[in-house]
Structure formats: structure tokens, C-alpha cells
């Protein structure tokens, strides 16, 4: 289970889980789950287009991911963001349908881009993912404080001179690049499940952003590691286990939150007071 190609799988999955945990925390905090779903999913169209032109899939993914992020940012300025996201998503997928229909081997390509091929990661794919993971986490670390402020308290951020618009666009682009690059490995759909479930679960266990990010990464790692182990033995797709385990962690967090609300009333009250201050 830990030999040869499987070692690459473990490494790739670990990096992907770290990216997903960090990006997912901010996506959940900012209420941008829809964008987190739409961008990697729509970027798959770029991969199909690149395949059609004979280019490296990475370029297609990058172009479509950034275009999607910019489109959501531009349209979202004048309309509601969920409408802008929905329209960008269907536009990109519509173009993807066109590209895929031109391709001759559409079925296999579509399946692997949507659900990933985590059990066949070559060493040549590994290096870009390592580099990309490091860069995206470093960028988030660099803009950590203003991004956190702009996400949690947009009005105060504006008053302090932090441009919420610029923060939003920067975050969307970083998230777009980070999540879309992993599409060939884990697939567009799996990446989404790995981002939202763990991050949402982490937020019900702790209120401190630093701890929540660490916990979110931890839960994402646990999800993907358990998923790989079970998937290796059962031969069922990893995406299924990741989706189910992530949802399980979320429900665990919800249950924990409910327990705390009912039995730990004094602490809850003091926490509310802290937020109000």
C-alpha cells in the first residue's frame, strides 16, 4: 500500500489536502462555497480545450480558472454573487461541452477530469503540485491578516483602508489556481468535497482562525488518508469515500456544536460577549 506509485499517491493527496484545508477555511468563512465548486468544475472545460489543441492540460486549467475567477469578480460587482457564479459556471461548462464533443475520447477524459486519477500519479506531475501547493499557501500566509479581516468584518476592513474588493479578487484567483491545478490528480468534484466539509467541521470545534485552519487541514488529511486506504482495499472510487467521510466530519461538528449549545451555556454566553466586543 505504500510502495512505488502508491507513494506518489500519498504525497499528492497530502499536498492536495493541505491546499484544500487552507482554501476551504476562507471559502467557508467568506460564504463562497459556490465559487469553490464552480471554478474547479468550470476549469475542466479548459482542460478539454487544451487537450483538443494538443497543449498541456495545465495551461487550459489555469486560463479557465483565472478567467472564471475574474468573471465572477466582474459580474458579481453589479449583480448578486451567486447569480454571477452560476452564470460563469454554466458558461464554462457549456464551452466545455462544445470542446468535449469535438474530442473523440470524451468519455474517459470527462470521467478522469471530474473524478481524478489519484492512483496513477507520476513523478512528473508531483513536482508542479508540490511547487504550487507551497506557493499558494505562502500567498495566503502573506495576505493572511488583511484577508481575514476583509472576510470576517468587511465594513471594518473598508474603514481601515483594506480594499475588500481587491482582497476578494486576489483570494478568488489564488483559490482558482490552487484548486484547478489539482484537477488532473483528484478531479474537480473531489476537490470541492475536500474543501467544504473539513473547513465547515473545523469551524464548529474552534472559534480561533489559526486553530480552525490547522484543524481544517487536519480533518482534510484524515479524510483523504482514510479514503485512500479504504479505496485501495475495496477498489471503490476515492471520490465516494472522500465525499462521505467529509460529510461525516461535518455532521460530527454539527453534533458537537449542538451538544455545546445545550450543555455549555455559560461558555457560549461568554463567547458571544467576546464576539460583540
Amino acid at each position, binding site marked *: 500500500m505504500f510502495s512505488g506509485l502508491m507513494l506518489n499517491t500519498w504525497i499528492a493527496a497530502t499536498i492536495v489536502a493541505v491546499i484544500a484545508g487552507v482554501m476551504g477555511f476562507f471559502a467557508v468563512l467568506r460564504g463562497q462555497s459556490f465559487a469553490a465548486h464552480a471554478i474547479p468544475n468550470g476549469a475542466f472545460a479548459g482542460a478539454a480545450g487544451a487537450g483538443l489543441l494538443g497543449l498541456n492540460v495545465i495551461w487550459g486549467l489555469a486560463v479557465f480558472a483565472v478567467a472564471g475567477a475574474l468573471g465572477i469578480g466582474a459580474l458579481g460587482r453589479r449583480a448578486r454573487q451567486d447569480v454571477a457564479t452560476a452564470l460563469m459556471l454554466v458558461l464554462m461548462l457549456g464551452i466545455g461541452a462544445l470542446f468535449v464533443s469535438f474530442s473523440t475520447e470524451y468519455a474517459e477524459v470527462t470521467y478522469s477530469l471530474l473524478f481524478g486519477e489519484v492512483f496513477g500519479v507520476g513523478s512528473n506531475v508531483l513536482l508542479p503540485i508540490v511547487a504550487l501547493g507551497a506557493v499558494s499557501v505562502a500567498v495566503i500566509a502573506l495576505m493572511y491578516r488583511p484577508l481575514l479581516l476583509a472576510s470576517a468584518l468587511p465594513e471594518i476592513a473598508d474603514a481601515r483602508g483594506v480594499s475588500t474588493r481587491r482582497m476578494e479578487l486576489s483570494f478568488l484567483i489564488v483559490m482558482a489556481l490552487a484548486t484547478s491545478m489539482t484537477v488532473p490528480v483528484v478531479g474537480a468534484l473531489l476537490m470541492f468535497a475536500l474543501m467544504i466539509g473539513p473547513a465547515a467541521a473545523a469551524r464548529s470545534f474552534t472559534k480561533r482562525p489559526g486553530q480552525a485552519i490547522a484543524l481544517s487541514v487536519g480533518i482534510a488529511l484524515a479524510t483523504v488518508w482514510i479514503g485512500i486506504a479504504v479505496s485501495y482495499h475495496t477498489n471503490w472510487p476515492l471520490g465516494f469515500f472522500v465525499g462521505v467521510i467529509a460529510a461525516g466530519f461535518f455532521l460530527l461538528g454539527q453534533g458537537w456544536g449542538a451538544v455545546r449549545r445545550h450543555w455549555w451555556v455559560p461558555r457560549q454566553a461568554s*463567547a458571544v460577549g467576546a464576539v460583540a466586543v
Partner: protein
Amino acid sequence: MGHFFSYIVEPGLLSSGPVRTALLVGTVVAVTSGVVGVLTVIRGQSFAGHSLADVATTGGAGAFLAGLNQFWGFLIAGVAGAAIMELIGVQRRRGRDVATGVVLGAALGGAALFLYLGTQTSSTTGASFTILFGSMFVISPDTVPALIASGVVALAVIAVLSRVLLLTSLSPELAAARGVPVRAVGIAYLVALAVAVSLSAVVIGAVLSTALLIGPAATSLRVAKRPSRAMLAAALIGTAATWLGILLAYDSYYWPPAGHGWPVSFFVVALVVVGYLLSYVRRPRRDRRARVAGQAQEEAPTQEAGACSPA
């Protein structure tokens, strides 16, 4: 008419029967999606609308695997998905986004499993393509009455509840003060949304389902002054986009690359998005009511952004 339709799609491949079915069902879907979509856009639940399409598609894949009627798989999964979203926190505005995301993530995992099992038991490798993009021409005629009936049910729920729904959408506090059961109304709406979306997902696939739900509604809300007119306009825009899309897809058989039609979903999506962008060209805002509707459309993001303080 029969002759006309036989030219739209390659004769011989499909007789005029299935095409007529496709156009009929496509119209039902466009009208239902347009009407339900106006409320979806006003309530800011595009994400739920899109997710339910994917959830319903997973149910369809499961039903296919189990050898059951796919339409019922779509419908049951869609309504069940809506119920779970509601249970784990759609009622709180801040939890809605995450609840939707978690249900979607789990459903996508299920889709991965069903597709995998599907490829193990039969040779339907095209399933992952169909699951996203659907196919308008694979509807069996005996499901058409059920399709139309479910569309009518969704429209009836919206018609009966439309005033209350608008009130709870625009001002939940006012509605609650007036004694409206806000949560029950929300659940009824979500079920209507699930029915409408499952209906469109089974006919035209998850991508087009979202396009027809959100695109025409967002466009019409920018130009129409009243919600009722916006619903009418959205239904018309959706129907026009569907019909034009089918026509263009037929014409595209003569476009490069030769001998290969372009997909219907591409044309419908492109028409819907172009229509939306055109609505920016001129935006009449003379009427006060339009302004109220427009404000409601723009207010919610700030409310949702405010949802970020720790729970």
C-alpha cells in the same frame, strides 16, 4: 409540422416523435425553471438550485444502476437533498451556503460511486458525460406525463404561495410579524425548487438545468418591473433559448468540423448568457417597485458577508 421537425434532427436517426417530445418537454422545463428561477434569484439560492440538479442526477444514476425508472430516482433524490439541506441549516442564512456545499459534496461522492459501479456492470462509459450535460432526446415517451405533472405541481406550489413567498423572501422579519410561517413556506419553496430542478436535470442535464433556472430569471429581473411579469418574461426567454438552441444545434451539422453537430447545451447556455449580458445595455429603473426588487437583489450579499463572525 412533422416535416419541419424531421429536418431539425437527422431524419432516420430520430423520427419526428422523439423530437416533438423533446420540444414539448423542453418547453415545460423552460417555463417551470423560469418561474421558479425568479424566486430562486430573489431568495439568493442559486447555489441550492445548482446543487439540487447534481444531487438529483446522482439519484438518477443510482436508479439506473438499480434498474428502476430514472425519473423517480431524480425526483426522490432531489426532494431528499432539499430536505437534508433544510435540516442541517438552510434556515439560517449563514449556514445555508455550507449546508448546500456539504450535501453537494456527499452527492458528488455518490455519483462517483454509481458511475464506477455502472462501468463495472455495463459498458456505459458515456455516463459521466450524460450526467453533466444530459441528453434531450433520450426521454422515453411514457415518462412524459409524469414530467409534465411534476412541472405543474411545482408551478402550482409557486402560484399558491407566490405572495407569501415574495414577502418572506424580501422581508422575513415582516412576514414573521404578520404571522406567516416563514420556515414552512421556505420548505414548500425548496420542495418546489427540487421538483423543478429534478425535472430539468433529467431532461437536459445538470448544466442546462442551472442555466435555464438562473439565466432567464436574472435577466428578466433586470428588466421587468413586477415579479409576476419577471416570471412571465423568464419563461419566455427560457423557451426561446431552448428552441433556438435546438435549431442552431441542427444547423451546426454543416459547420466545421464537418459532419459533427455542436451540442445543444452549448447553444442554450451561450444564448442565455448573452441575453443576460444584453440586459446590462439598458436598464430601466423608473418604477419604484423595480427599484425595490433590484435592491432586494443586491442587499443579500452584505447580509451574507456579515455571516462571517464566528458562530
